[in-house]
């Protein structure tokens, strides 16, 4: 502390002269409907956002909707699953046609059971993702933008559920990471016609295996086992209309997740030889939703959104929402600051 005090006494307040907008920075259209799928060169965007998902139902392994049981006789499900994500997302226009991005999430989760009288919550670091977007085709006024997106998800988050002694049902905390990484490639396009725009994308992700602290392997007498989430294909559609500074959009997405695998590590560079498929770990998920974005200035956007799942399956990986989404609406809000 003394050192800090000393430093402060030696310093004059700094001026932010270096933060002037630079000549090299690309033009950024003022409204969402005209904006391409990558941020322009030289723009740095910090997105602060959050999702709240509340689930009082769950997907059966046959894809049927099921409510949590009402054992306490209150007329509603005993269980409420609250899954929130708070994220910081950085996008940087590294080149005229290139964007780097990075998203770091943290999660607050809470599981209450009124029948059992339990109320368990946890807060922790989630799985970060990052990638590189490259724009391959672009016209302006009206906009056409076609990009590829090479993305990674890394198992950075909390993956230790707690004590092993009592088995999986005695966890003292919630797992927020698969402990594994994904590498994927997506293609997206956006076309504009006056105030309307239409966006669609499709991508595939290869999920790599890894020893994960939450995987309690019993067959091989291991404390922990090797786990490989199922690879997946995901597609989405997003129509949009711009009304003044307000962009109103709809979302529809479908994701097909293939079978996950688990087992023990095999020797050598490739560790998956001893993994076995997990029955019932593949399924299809469809979500629909809507969103509004207020383009306050080029430097500030505010967005709100909501989505609901309309098709899913129970994949038995609760509470790993990233690979086994529960059944409940998700509400989201974002604040995007650009420099």
């Amino acid at each position, binding site marked *: 502390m003394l*050192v800090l005090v*000393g*430093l402060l006494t*030696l*310093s*004059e*307040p*700094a*001026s*932010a*002269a*270096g*933060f*002037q*907008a*630079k*000549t*090299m920075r690309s033009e950024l259209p003022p409204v969402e409907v005209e904006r391409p799928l990558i941020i322009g*060169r*030289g723009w*740095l965007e910090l997105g602060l956002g959050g999702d709240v998902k509340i689930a009082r139902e769950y997907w059966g392994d046959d894809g049927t909707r099921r409510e949590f049981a009402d054992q306490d006789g209150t007329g509603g499900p005993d269980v409420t699953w609250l899954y929130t994500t708070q994220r910081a997302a950085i996008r*940087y226009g*590294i*080149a*005229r*046609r290139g964007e*780097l991005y*990075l998203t770091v999430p943290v999660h607050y989760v809470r599981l209450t059971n009124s029948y059992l009288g339990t109320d368990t919550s946890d807060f922790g*670091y989630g799985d*970060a993702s*990052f990638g590189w977007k490259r724009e391959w085709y672009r016209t302006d006024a009206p906009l056409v933008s076609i990009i590829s997106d090479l993305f*990674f998800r*890394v*198992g*950075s988050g*909390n*993956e*230790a*559920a*707690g*004590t*092993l002694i009592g088995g999986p049902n005695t*966890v003292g*905390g919630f797992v927020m990471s698969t*402990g594994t*990484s994904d590498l994927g490639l997506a293609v997206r396009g956006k076309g504009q016609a006056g105030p309307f725009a239409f966006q669609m994308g499709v991508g595939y992700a290869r999920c*790599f*295996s*890894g*020893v994960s*602290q*939450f995987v309690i*392997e019993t067959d091989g*007498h*291991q*404390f*922990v*086992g090797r786990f490989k989430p199922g690879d997946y294909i995901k597609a989405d559609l997003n129509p949009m209309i711009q009304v003044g500074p307000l962009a109103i959009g709809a979302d529809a997405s479908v994701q097909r997740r293939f079978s996950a695998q688990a087992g*023990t*590590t095999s020797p050598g560079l490739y560790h998956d030889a001893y993994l076995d498929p997990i029955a019932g770990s593949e399924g299809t998920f469809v979500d629909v939703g809507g969103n509004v974005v207020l383009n306050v200035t080029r430097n500030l956007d505010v967005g709100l959104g909501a989505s609901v799942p309309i098709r899913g399956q129970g994949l038995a990986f609760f509470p790993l929402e990233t690979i086994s989404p529960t059944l409940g609406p998700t509400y989201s809000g974002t604040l995007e600051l650009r420099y």
Partner: protein
Amino acid sequence: MRRLFAPLPLLGAGTLALLSLWSPPAEASKNVFLQNHPDLDWYSIETEHFVVHYPKSRKTAEEGNDHYLTAEYTARKASKVAEEMYPRMCAEFNYFIKEQVHIVILDQSDELEGFTVPNWDWIEVSANPGSDIQRLRGRMDWLYDVLVHEYAHVVSLKAAASQAEGALYTSIGGLYSDGVRDVAAGGDWFISEGDPFFWTEGGAEYWSDESGYNWWTPNRDRTIRASVLEDRLLNYDEWTTRAQSLDWYDGERGYQQGYSFALYLRQRFGNDTYEQFGLEAARAWRLDWLGVIEDVTGVPGEELYEDWKAYVTEKYTKQYAGIKAKGEAAGTELKTAPDDWDFKDPEGRDAFYDLKWKRKPITNEKIAKMERERAKEASGTYSMVARYSDDGRWLGSQFRGQVAVSPVPEDDLYAFGTEAHNGTAFGAEHRSFGVPNNFMVGWDFVPGQDAMVVTAKEQSSYRNTWQRSTGLWVDLEGYDWNEIWYVPLDLAERKERTLRWQGQGLKKRGPLADLLMLPGARPVPNTARGSEPAMAPDGKKMVFVQYHDGTANLAVINLDGSEKRLLTNFNDGTWIQRCDWSPDGKEIACAVFRNYQQDLYIFDAASGAVRPINFDRWEDQDPHWAADGLIYFSSDPGGVLNIYSVDPKTQQVRQVTNVIGAAEAPSITPKGNLIYNAYTAHGYKTYGLARADFYQRDATADFNFVYDEATFKEYWAFREDLSMYEPRPYQNDLMAPAGVPILRFGNNALDDFGAQAGAQFLGSDLIENHSFWALGLVGGDSIVAGGYTNRAWYPDLDVGFQYGLYKFNYGYTLDDDQNANTATDRTNYEGRNSQYYAAVFGSASLPLNDQLSTRLSAGANEYGFKTASDSEFAAYKRALIGELDVTFTNIGFQSFSANPRGGRNIDLGYAHAYSDIVYEAQGGATVDDGELLDAYHYEQVDLRWTEQIPMPQWTWLPRFLKEAGRLRHTVQLDVQGGFISRNVDLNDELRAGGQHPAYIGSDSLRPSSLFAGYPPFSLSGETVVIGNLAYRFPIRRQLNWRMGPLYVYDITGQVQGTAGNLWSFAPPESPDAYYRDGYGDRVARNPADVKREIPFVDVAHKNGNYLLYDAGGEVRVSSSLSSGFGWNSFVRVAYGFQEIRGYGDVNGDDLSQTTENAVGDELSDETELPGVRVYVGIGTGW
């Protein structure tokens, strides 16, 4: 059963490697301050497009400040120059920069400076043009030269950038480490723009020309003309990088080749061809920038290069033919005997060398050419400003930062003598010695005395050999200004050594700075920032040039420092280059640059009254007033710098030399002959031309002597009005923010492959008083770290923090019966841990001089982990540490050299630390070496001493050893020592084992080859003594081979071996003295029974050996990628001769054995067998 969790040896190692990623561009690695200057205040002048910052001393000279300085005039003038050039330079690229660009004016040293980091909107230039710019460029219009050049960089590099300015470059890399196969392979790749050297620097020259501030001066023409005629041009590959391809002057050659090429393209394709290259490059990043040449012109770049070369060859060959037709008057190099290869024409010279080198035999033409150039450069390179003492006893010549003085009679020199020496080396009576004198700055003999006056440095020049080798002196302020010194030659004669006047001229330099420490040698008082001394004929007074605020003034002073008088009182950028006294001692002739005009003037030594000798457009310089009453000088009518003489009374001018290179700095010997600087493509040489061979063309008509007295007076009195540029106090303005996006792939020996992404930032205020850095990476291992440095006071003050979350896998083999001979009862288990590491630290670093620095630091850290059965992290250990480090280096600048040649690097540290094991699952304690450890204090001393010893070429050595010296072989001795005062936890112990630069960073001065034959971090203990001896030899020097963006400079080989060990504490052997804990470890009942192992006496129980040895070899490839970034690679193979024991997964198979070992201690039952380890680094350094 052994402990189930792996120890935590690698904590922080990955982080350290990542921190070392910050490897800014060469330009950005400079600092404003060599050392801190807390006596300065800073001010700023803001204009529409620029902010100019300059320093000013708080105390004036009148208040007793010996180092008073201000750069206010320079800053005002820079403001004017900057705004003037802005529209013109931006128009070149039609790229009008909106952001204000900051110009920092330096005036703390007397050295030239000029560079920029466009991403930071930052230009740094010195107010002082230093000593060599006039030799380089021929004109002293310093601010227009340097500022326009640097701003041309800013505009062109911004306009040509394909990436956003917020990213200095993008870093991609990683390390694969395989403990089973004993391989560590890593790579680093920096994605940068890749602008080639000839375009970047030649372009800046060209755009300065295009915008009206520069032109193809005679000095520029001289550089290229000589290079063409002597077959010394950089080839198409060589000119893409900043590397000195063949040594001498290639930097300047690259500048001017690029400029000349641009002029050629202007004729062939139009004015904006060079600009179009940049704009084409900006469209999208490309791996090989050179492709833009063909895209713009339709002609492949190499073909265009050959076209240009043919064009300039024809042009200069014709010019040379014209000179020869009129009669060449150049004389010959001042040597004792002619060499067969003396320059006549390129064919004759090469014919000689081809014969010589084919005898070797060297048939490779590229190598033969390189060897030719080296031989030619060995003779008098940088030899200049030569003169004889009035009595004809001494010949002196400026030579690479010294004046080489030799008692050589004129008649003994081949150039003048009627009896040429027989060509063998002179005897002891002709031995020369060196007196320190700043590079390219004038000096003089003292008439009537065996003495001389030289331009030295107030701090560094007179440090003796002992001080230079130990760094033991204190220079806290960091000022090292020029100063005039008086040096008696008789003293120097007694110290004769190192420099010899041999058959081929001056060959070597040596550490002769201590000549100035001898009695009799003394600084001349009141000559701070003085240079270019010239003695009056009376031997008592001298005139010298005194610098202040971008301006030179003329001062006369007695040799004892008394009666100092300023003959001029400029404060407007006027520059005075060289002066000489009239034979009667009443007048002084000088070359003066002032108000865009460079001419010769005569000052009255008493009154300071001035009159021009001539008044014309030539770059007149180097006046020498000879005993014959004529003023000899160098000038460029006809486009070539030649020596002329002018009679100040009759104004008759005669051309004395007629050369094709350039003739500068004339001096007439006592016998009336001429000695002068001859510019050749392989160095400045001292040439002699006998009086009988003077060219003697009447050149009066080439010069203008007519001027109007009134006009001259007005011109001389003119002061530019710069009052509109008003300064304000500096406000700690920040540089434009920029960082480095980072992507890392790899494992950490025990882990799965993973990726990390993030960025590192380095920010600073514009004068670098405050700087900060931050690093954030997310992935399987996530790190956030940051720090701040304050340089506003004598010590640098640093504070920082680091927090990391790491994950790693481990495995172990459970042996039910604890019997190593039964395998069926063994079961392999997998495990995974999460760890955290948190640290804060602070330090104060005080550089004592440019070699020695000290650092006092303190820090606190904590780490812990979370196993699969934990829901929360549990702290394992907390520690506090205070440390004092002393670092000496006299070769720091060679950090990234493949073959550092000579010098030493020493790090000595003392620490007091406190550790507290707090892991509750173990009762807040741990067992190490049989001792139960909880909380403890300890002292630690570390020493790392690396000595680079070039193989000598002493004459008495056997021939093969001398040959090794000639071929630049080097012996490297690297010693690591360490001592911890008590038994400590494993994580506090000293460590050793093979290192990959990706772990520890790349630095030739702290080699990574110690115990390369053993696994990384595998050896530990409380005492370490390790020595590594390496022998290094160039395999191919100056290969200069380009393939696309890759440019390879050198390939170097090294063989090495290590011996030593780490010793620890041994658990008690007697069963009565210990009990076993829950893990089966022996625990001493009495800690005193845990015995310290004695180095070289005891076997180190942890690894099971008395001593450890390894041997190996490596190949280093020194290269750059994308025209600038060092991109150095290596392959290292090492063999560890001993089988070693240790903790945990000793054999690197990812499984820790739990079988009870035969010794019955806490160590693993595994061993690592003797074997080969392989390290590969592509772009990682070595």
